[in-house]
């Protein structure tokens, strides 16, 4: 009851003109960012941050959350209509969405996308509101070993859940953790890796790393490719046609599976909308009623990834709000906005600033509906942004990166760091080292180190305490399973293939073997 009363107050706050304006701006910017193939969701949220420095906390958080939410939706339009995924999370959408469009059902495919985003988003928002306060109450009982275990799980999952090489992901993560050690350490006040540069004593701001690696790095990568985007097919009529109730009911289990997958994946620190989208499609391929038809242009192939992508937003906000642990790049920026305004998300925030937390929750409900309304009526208009020359858009993206990095501390040294991390981000992309583990290493590294050191100090350097306490022990074991799984899975698969090949060989040449 108390939760509902807080939520009602949150709705009142959201409908205040300044907050509603921030919400609308956030939604439109998020949709635009998702449509542009060169701009990712995280980049968009990063670039918007400096513009929120002088806003009050509620509209700033609402704007960034709305961008995060809308960023999971509009990339589907270009995926379905042009076979150009706006975001990596939109790749599974084109497997069926584009095929539907080619079969003359583009409007219907867009309708399924809209409905999936609406259902997934609202379901996750309900879960978020229902779960946040109880989880925060549990988190109040956590001590440093539990926090370290959760952070360790987040660091491990970003490696084991992502795409690409696990070893490269580890290298990226360790580089991120090392960047986070630069500066004066919290416990002893010792200078580490400052090389005599005074500004490095304050450490390297994770925002500079994020803006450089995601923003400047991505622009440089696209610059090398000449900003040549794929020639878009001419789509004469972009409109959205909602499916019939009967059709929706037939796919109801896909909606439910996708939403739950999205929430669960979103809850895991280190996982995000892209992983949710792929995992949900994979689950549908395994368990879906229509699994054999997937890939031929069926609605389930759109509903599964889209519900999961949008519902992952609600899931990802839970660890941020309840424990102060950002599980993804976008939530790290939202954490940055909280901190800039002197608010520390965590279990206490429900006691100290419930009005801000519930305004954020309420904005998610209003935002989801607003996003779908904008999507229904303005998709055609927003897609026109693709006609804009990418060289100009990219120049402004780099400029926003510079302004964002500079405005945080008014320091020119941060501009040099930004340039350096921009080049590093480009090199990482070029050499196929994933950037997300690097960024999460920088964000979660200081939290992980502080909790690790506190545990060691409190328990006389006895690291086994991480495994002997029930909650931290369970999470540590889960982390180790997550760590070992990708390493052993390939070996087991290779062994199974060898066995199968040997078996086939035996059956074709029985005499030779006997």
């Amino acid at each position, binding site marked *: 009851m108390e939760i509902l009363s807080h939520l009602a107050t949150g709705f009142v706050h959201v409908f205040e003109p300044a907050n509603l304006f921030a919400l609308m701006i956030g939604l439109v910017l998020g949709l635009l960012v998702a449509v542009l193939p060169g701009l990712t969701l995280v980049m968009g949220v990063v670039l918007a941050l400096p513009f929120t420095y002088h806003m009050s906390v509620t509209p700033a958080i609402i704007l960034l959350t709305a961008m995060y939410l809308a960023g999971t939706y509009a990339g589907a339009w270009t995926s379905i209509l042009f076979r150009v995924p706006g975001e990596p999370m939109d790749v599974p959408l084109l497997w069926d969405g584009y095929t539907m469009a080619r079969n003359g059902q583009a409007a219907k495919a867009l309708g399924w996308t809209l409905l999936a985003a609406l259902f997934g988003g609202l379901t996750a928002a309900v879960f978020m509101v229902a779960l946040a306060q109880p989880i925060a109450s549990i988190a109040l009982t956590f001590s440093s070993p539990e926090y370290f275990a959760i952070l360790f799980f987040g660091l491990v999952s970003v490696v084991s859940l992502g795409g690409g090489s696990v070893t490269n992901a580890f290298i990226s993560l360790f580089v991120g953790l090392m960047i986070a050690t630069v500066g004066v350490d919290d416990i*002893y006040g010792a200078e580490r890796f400052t090389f005599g540069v005074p500004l490095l004593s304050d450490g390297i701001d994770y925002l500079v790393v994020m803006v450089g690696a995601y923003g400047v790095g991505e622009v440089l990568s696209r610059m090398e490719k000449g900003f040549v985007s794929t020639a878009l097919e001419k789509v004469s009529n972009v409109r959205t046609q909602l499916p019939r109730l009967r059709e929706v009911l037939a796919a109801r289990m896909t909606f439910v599976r996708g939403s739950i997958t999205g929430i669960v994946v979103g809850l895991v620190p280190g996982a995000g909308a892209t992983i949710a989208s792929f995992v949900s499609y*994979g689950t549908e391929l395994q368990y879906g009623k229509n699994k054999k038809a997937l890939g031929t242009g069926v609605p389930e192939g759109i509903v599964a990834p889209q519900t999961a992508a949008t519902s992952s937003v609600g899931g990802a906000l839970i660890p941020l709000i309840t424990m102060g642990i950002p599980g993804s790049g976008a939530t790290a920026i939202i954490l940055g906005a909280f901190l800039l305004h002197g608010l520390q998300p965590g279990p206490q925030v429900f006691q100290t600033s419930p009005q801000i937390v519930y305004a954020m929750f309420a904005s998610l409900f209003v935002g989801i509906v607003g996003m779908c309304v904008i999507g229904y009526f303005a998709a055609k208009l927003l897609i026109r942004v693709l006609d804009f020359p990418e060289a100009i858009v990219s120049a402004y993206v780099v400029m926003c990166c510079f302004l964002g990095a500079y405005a945080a501390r008014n320091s020119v040294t941060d501009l040099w760091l930004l340039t350096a991390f921009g080049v590093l981000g480009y090199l990482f992309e070029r050499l196929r080292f994933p950037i997300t583990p690097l960024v999460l290493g920088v964000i979660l590294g200081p939290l992980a180190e502080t909790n690790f050191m506190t545990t060691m100090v409190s328990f006389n350097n006895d690291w086994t305490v991480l495994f002997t306490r029930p909650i931290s022990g369970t999470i540590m074991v889960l982390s180790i399973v997550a760590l070992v799984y990708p*390493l052993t899975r390939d070996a087991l698969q290779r062994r199974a293939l060898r066995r199968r090949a040997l078996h086939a060989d035996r059956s074709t040449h029985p005499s030779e073997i006997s």
Partner: protein
Amino acid sequence: MRSDRMLRIAPYVAVLAIATYLLHKAGQIDYFGPPGRIGPDFWPKMVLGLLIAVCLYEIVKIGLFGRDRSSGGLVSTMSAPPSGAAEPEPPAGRSYPLRLLLAIGATVAYTALVPIAGFFLATFPYLAVFIYVGGYRRLPVVVPVALFGTLMMLFFFWRVAYVSLPIGREPFSSVSLLLMQAMGVR
């Protein structure tokens, strides 16, 4: 074949060299703490140790056995589309390394120029050069777009967000001060 392997292990060797140097530096971290308690060098040494181990693993794997394959994360195993499904449009194959080098050079020059020439005098040419290098060559569009964008950003950050952007050193600062006056910034 051998040069190809060398090229593939080069990034790991570079990271290994930097990590080894940093491990040496970590051994020189000065601190005062009670005996028997782990110090501020423990965490970086642990991370660097793991980094070195992973790099060595990759170097040995590629350098000695020529194996380039590595275990993939969960998404890499799920990212295969069902048979017959549409695939994303393949990206254009051409590469423009000169453009990239020019863009990096312009960015480095901009970073160096901002504190000297001020935000306006550094940003306007930087934007124009970046757009031009990026392949958009219509100067009658490039110049006004860069100029208008720079002025808009100045206005927003000076008048709306109250962020103090660099005004530069004399004689360039007089241009910034003139613009501040024109925009009504005190």
